[in-house]
């Protein structure tokens, strides 16, 4: 049986080790550092913030999360994260009740809007978070509940 833990890349292992000794923030800011497997393994938002070297997230009206109130199918749920604030380092999309909370990390540059949309899988109804990690270390978020329904004949 192959688990995701077995698939940690070498650099990801390194990242995890560095995270353990508190060196991740510098590493995370370097985009070439590779895939942050520890972050994608995090089961809770505090664990995720630890893996990403972020502080405690604060709810903010300046961040928006988009998504439907109800999804016809959990296999494809359109969600988005956006903010007009300057000084954004990265945007995250989280699904609180998924096996791992983190779905996607978008590293922001001056050349793109801090506005990303994708589609995610949701195992059950859950809060979905848009998180903005700022250059000054602040972590801001917005959340909304998305209900996942059972569709079709269910057979």
């Amino acid at each position: 049986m192959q688990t995701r833990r077995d698939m940690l890349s070498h650099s990801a292992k390194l990242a995890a080790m560095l995270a353990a000794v508190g060196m991740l923030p510098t590493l995370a800011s370097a985009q070439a550092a590779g895939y942050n497997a520890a972050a994608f393994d995090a089961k809770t938002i505090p664990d995720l913030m630890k893996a990403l070297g972020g502080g405690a997230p604060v709810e903010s009206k300046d961040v928006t999360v988009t998504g439907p109130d109800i999804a016809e199918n959990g296999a494809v749920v359109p969600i988005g994260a956006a903010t007009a604030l300057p000084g954004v380092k990265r945007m995250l999309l989280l699904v609180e009740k998924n096996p791992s909370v983190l779905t996607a990390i978008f590293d922001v540059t001056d050349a793109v809007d801090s506005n990303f949309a994708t589609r995610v899988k949701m195992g059950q109804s859950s809060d979905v978070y848009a998180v903005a990690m700022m250059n000054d270390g602040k972590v801001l978020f917005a959340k909304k509940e998305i209900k996942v329904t059972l569709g079709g004949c269910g057979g």
Partner: protein
Amino acid sequence: MRYLLIAGALLASVLGVSAQQKSAADGIAEYRKMLEDGNPAELFEAKGEVLWKQRRGPRNASLERCDLGKGPGIVKGAWVELPRWFADTQRVQDLESRLLTCMETLQGLNAVEIAKTPFGRGEQVSMEALVAFISAESRGLKVSLPQSHREEQVMYEIGKRAFFFRGGPMDFSCSSCHNQAGQRVRLQDLPNLTVNPGDGVGFAAWPAYRVSSGELWSMQRRLNDCFRQQRFPYPGYASDVTIALGVYMGVNAKGAQSIAPALKR
């Protein structure tokens, strides 16, 4: 007084229910709207176009000479006129059965083997891409199946009978779910397939990308899963009952604008 109370309670519960239904239905409509832009069916359309033009099979030929009913190689508008009578095979054929014919006669592939292949494997993968491409070439056109040939009319009558045929341990027929507008199974709207259910609804929405499986489903696959949920035995791929049902639904849907390949739950 007591009756008034009961009536009041009833009214309240009815109102409560309808408000809730509306919000769930609105929510689903909003969800579908959000998915409209960026239908993964596009990926299959692109792949299908390549497959249509690619030399393949033992004869190393493309499908570009395939006659889908409007003459060899004419793809545009072909989908909204299928199933129809084909003189060369002396059969009424739907898109999938016609593609089987072309894959065999032009490319030298084995149609019987392809029909037997489970969905999502081998040449069935090519088939789903091809139907995505071909149906997309009729996007926006109105469904208009020919009914001039006697066999086309006979197939309509057979399809109608198959549509109402009840069987299996649950006594279901196609008509159990699809003979009235405005009904749902869970939250999914059920089109009335005995009439034209409207533009881009029912017959005019398939093939479609199925969100739940992340696959493109041809009408053959759609019918196959209907029969599975109906608790029927397994309909042969491109078998006459499936083609007859295609004729019945297609003729009923005359004038409906095709949005295939659509996006479905």
